[in-house]
Each structure stands twice: as C-alpha cells, then as structure tokens.
C-alpha cells in the first residue's frame, strides 16, 4: 500500500476525481437500495405485520387480494383451525374537508389474531361501529390526528380515528383498520352482506382443495401485489447496472494510470521488486479509492436520510446498505484485475535501452 498511498497523496486532484465518481455511483446505489426497500416495504408492510404463512383467496383472483371476494358459503367450507383471520380489503379515498388521501381499508374481526396483534402506538383499538385505526403515515404526511373524523365516500359512514398503528401500509397506501361490518358497509353498502376478501392463516391450512378457492403462501400473494414484482425487478436491474458501471470505471481508470506507469514499473522489476508487490499495490489502490468513496457516500446518504421528507418511501436498511457496499468493493477488486494483468506482462528487459 506504500506506493498506492504515496501516489494518491501526490496526485490529489486526479484521484479526487476518481473518488468523486465512485462517491456519486455509491450514493446512487445506496439511495436506490433505500428506495427499493422502502417501496417494497410500503407494498407489504401490513401483510408482514400479520406474521402469517398462508392465505385463502377466491381462485379467480389469481392470487391478488384486491380482486378476491369470498362469499359466506365459500367461507364456511374452510375448516376452522387456530390462527385464522378473515379480512376484507378495499381501496378508498379518505376525505377530510377538501383533502383526499388514498388508503387501503382492511376490515378485521375483533375476535381474530390480526385485530389482537395490531400494534397501537397511540390511542386504542376500535370497539364500536365507525371507529378505525389508521397507519401513522396518515398522521405524518396527511394531517390526520387521533380523534379526527373522515369519510371514504359521500354516502359512507363518518369514521372516527381512535387508534394509530405503525408499519401498516399495503400497496403503498396507508391502511385503515375497521370492523368487518364497517368494511362491508363501504364495499357492499350493507353490513348484512357477509362476503370477505380473504382468510389469513397463521399456520398452513390442514385441508385439501376447496371448491372455488385457492390457498397460496403469503409470499406468493405479496408477489401478486400490483406492480410489486415489476418495481423490484426495475430496481434490481438499475442497481446491477450501476455495479457493472463501477467495474468498468475502476478498470478504465486504473488501466490508464497503470499504462502510464509501465516504464517505471519496468525499472522496479529490473531491480527485483516483485510483480506481486506491484500487483498488491494496484489492488490496494483500487480498494482505497472505493472504500473512501463508500465512506463519503455513506455520510451523504446519512444526511439525505435526515432531510428527506417522510412522504418519500425510502428506508435505509443497514444490512442492505452494507451488502451494497460489499458488492461495490467486490466490483472494485474485479475492476483492478485488468490493470494487474498488464503489470504481470511487463518485460523488464524493455527498461534497458540500446543494444
């Protein structure tokens, strides 16, 4: 590392430029990773919070909760077992004064595990008709407060917020937990229609095929959330492409710098300085550039996390960020292999002129 450090200290501007490029790429990778994770979480948070294994949906819904309706007769076919919770789901616009907020209304039964496990951070769980629990993002981003009243359509009941929960988003919209009766009033216009959307199973259902229904894993249902898979694939592609760009940039920069140093390295080889020592210095230099770039971009990412509005669905998950940083470092090592091959090929005899 002696040569690597000395060269970087001497050519501060040149290496400053390379580090700046790495900083920008690493920053972009970190922000995209945060956005990918944040958006994925916004799609699935509520489902994850139920901590369940399986779901029973109408077989025509093709795994999509939003398109599933289970009639009371169909629901009766599902054998009762511990850890079952019926849910009803509908996308709504919460309306307060002139402000509309897209939300996902989820009807649940107070005697089943989803209701029992809802994590209340303020207020209480609903007990009476027209009482709801809302996700804290409605408080943070949309100006709702405990005790506020709102409607979800002109002819819907007026709901009162009695509790705030956290980590309850579904398909990027905040969840409004209501009683099953209130959900039916909104979706079907009557509390007496006994249809539901799905049955969530904490443990796998010990029952074979059910006519008109299908049981799938929670993960399969998450993959069927509209846009979820496409969005994740897009982010993975972008991050992968940026990692590829990292390899190319490191390889090009180090290759050009190494080519400029070949006459000097030839003389060092004549003097018996091992090729291994020179190769280690080039790889070390690549690592140093990348680690410095990652540290600076890490600081920038931290600052971004502090100032970014809470409405932006970005979550900096440390294991993921460290994973991305590890991949960038791996790419820098791969990028430095090309110039090291040039060093190995240097013929020390070329350092001697004449005949």
């Amino acid at each position: 590392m002696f040569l690597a450090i000395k060269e970087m200290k001497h050519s501060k501007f040149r290496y400053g430029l390379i580090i700046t490029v790495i900083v920008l790429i690493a920053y972009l990778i970190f922000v995209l990773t945060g956005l990918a994770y944040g958006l994925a979480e916004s799609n699935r948070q509520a489902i994850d919070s139920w901590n369940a294994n399986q779901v029973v949906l109408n077989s025509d819904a093709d795994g999509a909760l939003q398109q599933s309706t289970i009639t009371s007769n169909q629901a009766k076919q599902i054998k009762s077992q511990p850890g079952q919770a019926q849910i009803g789901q509908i996308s709504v616009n919460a309306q307060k004064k002139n402000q509309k907020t897209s939300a996902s209304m989820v009807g649940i039964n107070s005697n089943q595990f989803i209701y029992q496990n809802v994590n209340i951070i303020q207020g209480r769980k609903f007990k009476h008709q027209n009482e709801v629990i809302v996700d804290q993002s409605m408080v943070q981003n949309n100006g709702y407060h405990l005790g506020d009243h709102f409607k979800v359509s002109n002819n819907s009941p007026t709901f009162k917020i009695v509790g705030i929960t956290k980590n309850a988003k579904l398909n990027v919209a905040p969840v409004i937990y209501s009683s099953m009766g209130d959900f039916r009033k909104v979706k079907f216009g009557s509390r007496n229609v006994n249809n539901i959307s799905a049955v969530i199973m904490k443990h796998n259902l010990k029952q074979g095929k059910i006519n008109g229904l299908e049981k799938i894993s929670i993960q399969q249902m998450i993959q069927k959330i509209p846009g979820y898979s496409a969005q994740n694939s897009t982010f993975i592609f972008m991050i992968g492409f940026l990692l590829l760009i990292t390899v190319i940039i490191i390889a090009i920069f180090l290759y050009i710098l190494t080519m400029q140093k070949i006459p000097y390295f030839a003389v060092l080889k004549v003097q018996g300085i091992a090729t291994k020592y020179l190769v280690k210095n080039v790889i070390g230099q690549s690592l140093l550039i990348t680690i410095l770039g990652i540290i600076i971009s890490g600081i920038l990412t931290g600052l971004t996390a502090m100032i970014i509005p809470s409405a932006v669905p970005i979550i900096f998950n440390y294991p993921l960020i460290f994973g991305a940083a590890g991949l960038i470092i791996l790419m820098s090592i791969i990028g430095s292999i090309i110039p090291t091959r040039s060093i190995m090929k240097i013929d020390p005899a070329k350092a001697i002129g004449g005949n």
Partner: protein
Amino acid sequence: MSTIEMKNISKIYQNGTTKTYALKDIQFKADNGNFITITGPSGAGKSTFLEIIGGLLTPTSGKLLINHHSYQNLNKKEKEKFRLNTLGFILQSYNLLPYLKVEEQFQLVHKVKKDNNVGPKLWKWIVDELGIQKLNQQYPDELSGGQKQRVAIARALYTNPQIILADEPTASLDSARAFKVMKMFKQLAQKDNKLIIVVTHDLRLTQFADQHYQIIDGQITKA
C-alpha cells in the same frame, strides 16, 4: 571459480529465416573486487550482454554461472529475488517514480528488502559522493537530469548488491561528476569487494577500470 562465468553464450534474434547474432559464442569471467568497463559501438550487443547477466534475457545457447550456480534454471520469481538480493542495476533510463520524494525512493526499496542493505556509514559515504544529501524532500520533476541519474545510482546501491551492472550510468552527468562516480565505483569494488560492470560509449571512463572489454558485432574481446 568466478563470480560470473559465461560459457559459449550466444543470443540469436530470428526474424523469419533471417538470423541475427546479438552475442556470439561469448566466453567471459569476472570476479568480485573488480571494476570492469565494456565499450563498443551502438548495436554491438552491450545491452544484450548486461540483460543476459541480469536474467532479463535468456541466451539462445551457452551457460551462465553466477556464484557457481546456473542462473538460467531459475524461475521468474527466483530471478526477481536474485536481482533484488544480489544485483544492482543502474540504467540509462533512470525512471524514478514521479510521485515519490527522493528519500521515499529509498524507502520503497527498504519496504521490499528489509535486511542486508547498506549500513549507515557506507550509505552516508555514497550519498556524499553522489552529492544528493540535500535532495531528500524533492520530487523527481524538481530535479535536473544529472540529479535524477545520481539518485537512481544511489537507489541501485541501497540494497548493497554484490554485483553492480550499469548501462551508460553517466550519460546525464557532466565530465567531473561522471569521473567522480567512476572513482566511487572503483572504491566500492576494491573496499567492499563488489563486482562492477559498466557498459559505456565514453572511452574516457575506461581509465578507472581494472579490466576493459570491447564488444563488436556480438563478440567480446579484452582491450
């Protein structure tokens, strides 16, 4: 037995059906404690001669013994180690690393060879003789050609090599400085029992040598 012994060494470059002899049937012996100069016209094979002794080129035929060992059988890594521990190369193209100060050029050598380098007393003498004692904090681009050449000579001597091979080591030096370097080589050969071989165009330098050879058309003769 000699320190360096070349037996029937030839080096042929082949281009299609045309064969060119860079060295032809060389017989050469040299012992420690000697300062040898080799002169000859351009293209005569002087540099090829040095490159073969230094293990940078493999002869087409013949045998090279250094310290009684066959040098040709060493692999690339062993040759690197041998050059670092036993040989000191002084080249016409000194190529000091541009991002290392003068003192760091020596520190680099010390990083890769920590033991058996020149002692402080001998080092001080070398630095004084070369007149580079005030250049420690300078970068190569702040030095004149002559200063760079003298730093490169010091860098080659830092490892305290048993054999010193020099290719036009005084090309960038004025006559007075060139003569001083030659005297220093002579003293190093005599007092420190080193074998020094200098290839040069400058016939005036041969006056300092214990032995003087000429290479003409790939053949070596004692002058």
